[in-house]
């Protein structure tokens, strides 16, 4: 059986590119604070969502809508409306993180399939089973901190489908709880849908030396021959005590393409590609590559040689926590 690939779309053009390139499923969000990629110029209004869903369905693909930020007290109606509108647009599932919103969706939209966002940071079988029994969650997106044997152990103890990231930006924080972006900018992916918002990012080129600032803090500076620094605190370069370097996380991107057969054996249902903030060119190339990979896996052929290195953030890739050689 071919593993499902779940592909990002920040715009209607990217959705079409993903579907044409072979996406089984596309995930996207509304153009507001209800989704964790609330970036300028990105996302879908209601008409675009309806048209995008129709396009995907006409081509045999599914659409998931991420409503995965945490509602502000007193403003829950914005999130409730997003769930209702997603259902009206005909989406195949919503991806939620907040327990209040999950309870609301389960009660008022019982026919709408619910997935648990990585923003909920559910990282063991007990948590998966809790979300399934209490809110009818059918699938959980696992955090990017688990090894393949740990994922296999989780799948052995739950009937809930699991979805894991295989490519793109690598977040190793307790997702949904990380406060680094809030500390520097007052805005977070959890509440505002923006990690290291572009409005607070500045790059300065000083005769080839490029520095990145977030909220006024210089978080990294590189020489002329190095890749541009990533503008998040977690991938910044710091000095602490006698040590200097990427203290939280190296500025590398996830590429678990070669681990697809192992992830299949571990009982994973779907493979997720990160990158709703990337272009339709990125989406088309990555999706094409991963569709070929899952087809090869299902047919028992070797994994095709990938051509994705140039698309990785920071221009370098890792298998992340899936292989515990990573620090």
């Amino acid at each position, binding site marked *: 059986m071919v593993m499902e690939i779940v592909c990002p779309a920040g715009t209607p*053009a*990217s959705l079409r590119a993903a579907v044409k390139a072979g996406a089984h499923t596309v995930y996207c969000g509304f153009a507001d604070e209800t989704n964790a990629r609330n970036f300028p*110029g*990105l996302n879908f209004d209601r008409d675009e969502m309806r048209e995008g869903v129709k396009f995907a369905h006409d081509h045999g693909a599914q659409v998931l809508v991420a409503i995965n930020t945490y509602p502000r007290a007193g403003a829950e109606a914005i999130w409730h409306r997003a769930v209702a509108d997603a259902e009206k647009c005909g989406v195949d599932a919503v991806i939620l993180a907040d327990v209040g919103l999950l309870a609301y969706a389960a009660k008022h939209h019982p026919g709408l399939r619910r997935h648990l966002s990585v923003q909920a940071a559910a990282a063991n079988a007990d948590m998966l089973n809790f979300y399934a029994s209490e809110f009818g969650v059918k699938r959980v997106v696992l955090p990017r901190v688990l090894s393949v044997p740990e994922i296999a152990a989780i799948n052995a103890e739950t009937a809930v489908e699991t979805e894991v990231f295989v490519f793109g930006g690598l977040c190793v924080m307790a997702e949904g709880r990380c406060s680094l972006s809030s500390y520097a900018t007052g805005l977070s992916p959890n509440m505002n849908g923006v990690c290291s*918002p572009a409005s607070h*990012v500045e790059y300065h080129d000083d005769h080839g030396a490029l520095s990145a600032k977030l909220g006024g803090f210089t978080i990294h500076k590189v020489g002329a021959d190095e*890749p541009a620094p990533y503008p998040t605190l977690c991938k910044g370069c710091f000095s602490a005590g006698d040590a200097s370097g990427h203290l939280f996380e190296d500025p590398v991107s996830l590429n678990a393409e070669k681990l697809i057969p192992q992830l299949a054996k571990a009982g994973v249902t779907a493979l997720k590609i990160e990158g709703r903030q990337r*272009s339709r*060119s990125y989406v088309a190339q990555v999706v094409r590559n991963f569709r070929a990979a899952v087809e090869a896996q299902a047919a028992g052929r070797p994994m095709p040689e990938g051509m994705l290195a*140039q698309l990785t953030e920071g221009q370098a890739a890792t298998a992340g926590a899936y292989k515990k050689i990573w620090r």
Partner: protein
Amino acid sequence: MQDHAVQLPVFPRLPAFALRGLPLTPISLALGAFARRMATRHPSMFKRLGDYSNTRFVLDPTDLPVTLLLEPRAGHPRLRLSRKPMQGDARIAGPLSGLLGMVHGAYDGDALFFSRDLVIEGDTAAVLALRNAIDDAELDLAAEAGAMSGPFAPQVKRLIGLAETKTGVALSRHEEDPLW
């Protein structure tokens, strides 16, 4: 750190040098008309700019002796060309092939930025909004120029095709057939 950078074609020196002698006013006027046509045909592109629809963008093709100032002006765009450095709220600089390759979906903007092929300065959020708005519009500048040329459309298309071949710059939309 491995080097995975895309190798971008550089605009040939001779035609780039020839630009130094050309009068810029008629070219600016033609570009302005072109931008206004884009606004009529792709209103959603300007809508996507949102809070940045009045931002002044300096577009700097580093292998040409000119820079462009793009002012979207909420759907009533102005585009000016200059041989002198121009001031704006945000600046995007890189080889012409990179800038047009992004417009046509041949290259990913983030990849070009991380590989240092592209430089951005000033209002980062505005740059992001512009990049996303243009990416969603699925522009084909060659097709637009052809459509503007009336009875000369076939000749213009041939000329653009020739320029694309000779310079390696993506002047038309990059699209591949559905695979599955």
